């Protein structure tokens, strides 16, 4: 009995697999076309349209967009009042990023180094669970928590620590009438909603640091603090930067939290929202929207220069 060296093709799937084997790039191309179309045309296209809009201006009398290239809108953007908005947003984004990083590190470190099996599942569930509920629900829940009639004030009274709460609220600039109408409150809510975006990349980065590397550091005489500074932090830095890109840009672009919590001071996101909505000033809204992009570019350049991506 002779058996063939080549098995007969069973149908379309066999022939297709054969085609992909002969032309390996074909499959890759087919897989990449939809996302490239999406990214290239829809995403980058709209970004380009946004940039373009920012170089138009608005006719002050008719309120119509004049489709002619001008830097008038950018001149308008760089007024002192708008500086304040940009500076305030930048400061809040930086504070939120720092707060998230400090809070996320121990959690991410624990999950990467010690959590196994069931506890790992608990970790992922714990981090992801808040993402399953609506962002608005969470923000309103926080407003209630932070309100003067809320649970924090109640708890402070019950434990006779109202003095501390009042002292915190009496702080200049960041304090206020109540937590829910102060920058502190806004910071707390931002930190809460963006924390998972910091924990997850950090945990992924820490997971890739082999235990033997930490042991090598100790073995050579390093204290815990030295190990952290010279080995853990540099190796986890790409993850920290990835996380900070999320927290930083999400805070910079947000226009809902500053409306609900805080002292109704203006933020970039709110400014964009108002300019393109109520004010109908699309060019200025576009110019405002360009600011976070520029800030992120500067941030990433600085991070790259500081060697944050060397361990990638």
């Amino acid at each position, binding site marked *: 009995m002779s058996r063939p060296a080549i098995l007969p093709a069973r149908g379309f799937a066999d022939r297709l697999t054969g085609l992909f084997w002969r032309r390996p790039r074909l499959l890759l191309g087919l897989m990449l076309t939809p996302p490239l179309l999406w990214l290239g045309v829809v995403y980058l296209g709209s970004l380009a349209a946004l940039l373009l809009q920012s170089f138009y201006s608005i006719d002050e009398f008719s309120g119509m967009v004049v489709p002619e290239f001008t830097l008038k809108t950018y001149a308008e953007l760089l007024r002192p009042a708008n500086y304040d908005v940009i500076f305030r947003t930048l400061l809040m984004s930086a504070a939120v990023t720092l707060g998230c990083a400090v809070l996320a590190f121990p959690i991410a470190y624990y999950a990467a180094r010690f959590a196994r099996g069931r506890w790992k599942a608990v970790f992922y569930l714990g981090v992801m669970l808040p993402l399953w509920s609506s962002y608005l629900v969470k923000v309103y829940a926080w407003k209630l928590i932070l309100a003067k009639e809320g649970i924090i004030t109640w708890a402070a009274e019950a434990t006779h620590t109202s003095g501390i709460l009042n002292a915190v609220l009496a702080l200049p600039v960041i304090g206020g009438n109540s937590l829910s109408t102060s920058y502190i409150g806004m910071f707390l809510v931002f930190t809460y909603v963006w924390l998972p975006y910091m924990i997850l990349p950090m945990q992924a980065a820490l997971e890739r640091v*082999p235990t033997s590397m930490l*042991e*090598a550091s100790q*073995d*050579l005489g390093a*204290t815990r603090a030295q190990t952290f500074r010279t080995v853990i932090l540099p190796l986890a830095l790409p993850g920290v930067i990835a996380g900070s890109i999320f927290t930083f840009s999400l805070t910079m672009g947000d226009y809902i939290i500053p409306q609900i919590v805080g002292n109704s001071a203006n933020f970039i996101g709110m400014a964009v929202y108002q300019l393109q909505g109520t004010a109908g000033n699309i060019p200025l809204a576009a110019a405002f929207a360009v600011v976070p992009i520029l800030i992120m570019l500067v941030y990433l350049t600085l991070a790259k220069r500081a*060697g944050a991506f060397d361990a990638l």
Partner: protein
Amino acid sequence: MTVAVEFQSVSRHFGPVKAVDSVDLTIAEGAFFAMLGPSGSGKTTCLRLISGFEQPSGGSIRIFGEDVSRTPPHLRNVNTVFQDYALFPHMNVRDNVAYGLMVKGMAKAARHARAEEMLALVKLDRYGDRKPGQLSGGQRQRVALARALVNEPRVLLLDEPLGALDLKLREAMQDELKALQQRLGITFVFVTHDQHEALSMADSLAVFNEGRITQIGTPAEVYDRPATRFVADFVGSSNVLPPEMTRALGGPAQWASLRPENTRLAETGPVTGTVTALRYLGSGTRVILRAGETEIAALVPAGQPLPEPGATSAFAFAPDALHVMGGA
């Protein structure tokens, strides 16, 4: 003799698992000491007990007479070459080697000069500016060695130091490690599951099995006079003969070991077997005989006639080649 490392009934239990079970061990200063055993035999745990990455569940560990039970790894004057080398990927080779000096607060110029000396010692000068990722496996191994030696440890621990290297490189590194150890006079303790490595490098070795040390001795002692069937079987390949066969061959009714290289095929003999397999080794051919339940390997030197599989043959050996083992 100064004692470098001493274990007094040291145990390390992980839950119900006795990874190290009441081990007594003495390693002399300046020794090249091997801990040999199959995976899970407790040899690596013993190494980690010396470096401090594991703490004993019982017993005491002394390094140069000092009890280190309560000393954290970073305060022990002992350094480790890790199995995966554990080089810091974000630092160049020079900074990797200088790391131990950096954390002690030595100034940059001084520690870099010292690192270059260490790199020269392992023949890697001119590689200081490279990143570990740009080096070959053998070069990384040398960097790990230089980094572990920069602190001038009193004991150097090596965890499967040559495990990741290919055969040629492994043999070259064996010679180099041995030469380096003799030059520096530092006590080397290394863990391996490779008996050839242990026999060729160590000047004394401990054979581990199931958390205990089965035998300690020089390579020749362990090879020629294995204490148990396990050692006979694990260190080199050996014919392990049951008591009845030992007696048939003229020995006492006890378990015995017989090295294949000391066993020849013969026309006649007290025990005969059936040839079941032939293994060509280059320098000769190993012939496997089956006599009842026992397999006996004999060496037929190159150029001599070979039996056919299925043939019947006896075997012979020099009288002192049969090593009778105590106990089971």
